[in-house]
């Protein structure tokens, strides 16, 4: 599946968006050291649609946090879009999250007091964009996920599927390198799940790189490649017919 062997000191090829090299993360819990990731090396090309699977405790949440730049590894390297981010500080990571990563969460994580438009605007606020431009970009992103007529609804006035669409619009509004989805259908019924998977497929067709963490095989079946983690290591990594 992978490409050429990566050695410390190398720079990834230009079409590699995500490259992890012997990525490890340990937590110290009291006197015990928990090794959540023990050295994961994965390369993901631009415009790939990858599902990350694994049972609980396999390290997929830790992997997703690291890939999402919410956490820093104990050892190993992580390159995102040609930039080594594994040794960046808090504020630089915040900037990377803002520019390169679009998150979609299981619980949507929309701000309850803000309307859809304002929720989608948020990443642009932190990017320092001016209000008029922000509004324009946010409404375009909402239109892209089919919610042009719901811009001024608050999350509690929207259905679960619509909420997840708002979250997707928010994830895409900054044109990120990767769309990083964590159990995106975990809180949705199967019809709505299929609808959201349709949105993902469309985005992928339009050239978006998608990384999706899930434990449901039928959701993972939507992806063109499945990486399975077990005990903090890559267990399988195979392409499949999407």
């Amino acid at each position: 599946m992978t490409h050429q062997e990566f050695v410390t000191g190398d720079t990834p090829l230009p079409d590699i968006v995500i490259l992890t090299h012997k990525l490890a993360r340990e937590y110290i819990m009291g006197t015990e050291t928990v090794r959540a990731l023990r050295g994961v090396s994965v390369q993901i090309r631009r415009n790939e649609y990858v599902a990350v699977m694994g049972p609980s405790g396999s390290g997929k949440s830790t992997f997703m946090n690291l890939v999402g730049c919410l956490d820093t590894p104990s050892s190993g390297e992580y390159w995102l879009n040609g930039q080594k981010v594994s040794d960046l500080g808090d504020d630089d990571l915040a900037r990377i999250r803002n520019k390169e990563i679009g998150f979609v969460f299981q619980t949507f994580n929309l701000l309850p007091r803000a309307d859809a438009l304002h929720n989608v605007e948020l990443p642009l606020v932190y990017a320092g964009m001016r209000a008029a431009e922000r509004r324009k970009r946010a409404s375009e992103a909402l239109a892209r996920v089919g919610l042009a007529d719901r811009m001024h609804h608050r999350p509690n006035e929207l259905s679960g599927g619509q909420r997840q669409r708002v979250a997707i619009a928010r994830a895409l509004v900054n044109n990120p390198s990767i769309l990083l989805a964590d159990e995106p259908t975990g809180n949705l019924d199967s019809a709505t799940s299929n609808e959201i998977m349709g949105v993902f497929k469309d985005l992928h067709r339009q050239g978006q790189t998608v990384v999706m963490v899930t434990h449901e095989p039928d959701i993972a079946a939507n992806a063109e490649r499945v990486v399975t983690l077990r005990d903090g290591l890559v267990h399988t990594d195979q392409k499949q017919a999407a």
Partner: protein
Amino acid sequence: MPFYEAVRLALQTIRAQKLKSAFSVIGVFIGVTFLIAAVSIVNGMNRYMTDKFAASIVGVNTFQLRHRPNVGFNVPDSVWRSWRRRPRITFADAEAVTRGMSVPGVLTSWFSEDQGTVEYGGKIAKSIDLQGAGADYFTIKNLNIVQGRPFSPQEAKAGIPVAVMGWELADKLFAGNDPIGKTIKIQGLPYTVVGVVEKQGTMLGMSLDKFVVAPATSPIQRDVNPPHVVDALMVKANTIPEMNLAMDQTEGIMRARRHLRPNQDDNFALETSAAVLDWWSGINRLMVAFGPGIVLISLVVGGIVIMNIMLMAVAERTREIGVRKSLGAKRKDILRQFLAEAITLSTVGAAAGIAFGIILTLLIQAFTPLAAQVAPWSVGLGVVLGSVVGVVFGTLPAMRASKLDPIAALRQE
């Protein structure tokens, strides 16, 4: 995220939680209200005392020769007793001072006063200020005659029983009828009314128009003071330096008349409007001493309340903070957001306090005898204190929010 975005966000949050926000700013609100109201009273009273009270009690560029000060603040008993043993000012003293002063343009007037009853045609006015004075008294005190005339120097000198009434007294006894030439009874003694003084209004709730002035040597003298004694000699000069010169000369003349040796203190008093102001500043000092303490305590309490509310808000909104961080909010963005919220809260509280303080001041003006006037600097100080409280007490919660780990924050229910 620019600061104005943070403030806009804070206003949204405050609007969404009106009741909670109202309770959280109550301390700052009370502190600033008190600040504005107290400063308004002190300020208004100060102005009142300097502009009106001192001038109307003593007069502009005027001093009074008395056997003891007329107004005193916190005078010990022993001093008071020694004042009472002093010899009074006699007609002869007043004459000697008037003749002895060489300051050009000075006006002098004898002055004695007491409370008494004035009657006309069966109507009785009680607690009237009975004043015995010289002809220049009206000029010295700047009293305009609206009806009739003041009494003349000749009438004053001869002690003719003529009287000039204050506006309220005239209104009470004559109820709009012409009083000029009518005979009123002052303490039972018949006097002919020659004039009425323009309405003076009130001072600290007391009417300034319930008085009658008659020549100091007229029959009423017997009722007001012992024979040949006056309460005071009023001296008015044209300027302050001339007044000071007149005071020096008066002191010299009186010391000579009383045969005081150089090591002996004056056994008489020369009182200017400054003395009245001294008395006022004594009261003023009390307010200035306690006022800031009360303001400070309420602001600190208000700040602590805001800090607790903000700490609660950080705990409640941990997930929101996590979401914001995942979308690219830096530490300083979160810090700024929560700091702006605290500052906005306390500034809104301060603004409400300023508004209510001004309303309170207007109410005090309208419904109490106190003179209150809003001091612009106190409004500015209110705004500044409001935001300072926000900064001081918002920093800890904002720091706590900004340091949250995004993963843990996102995981929170």
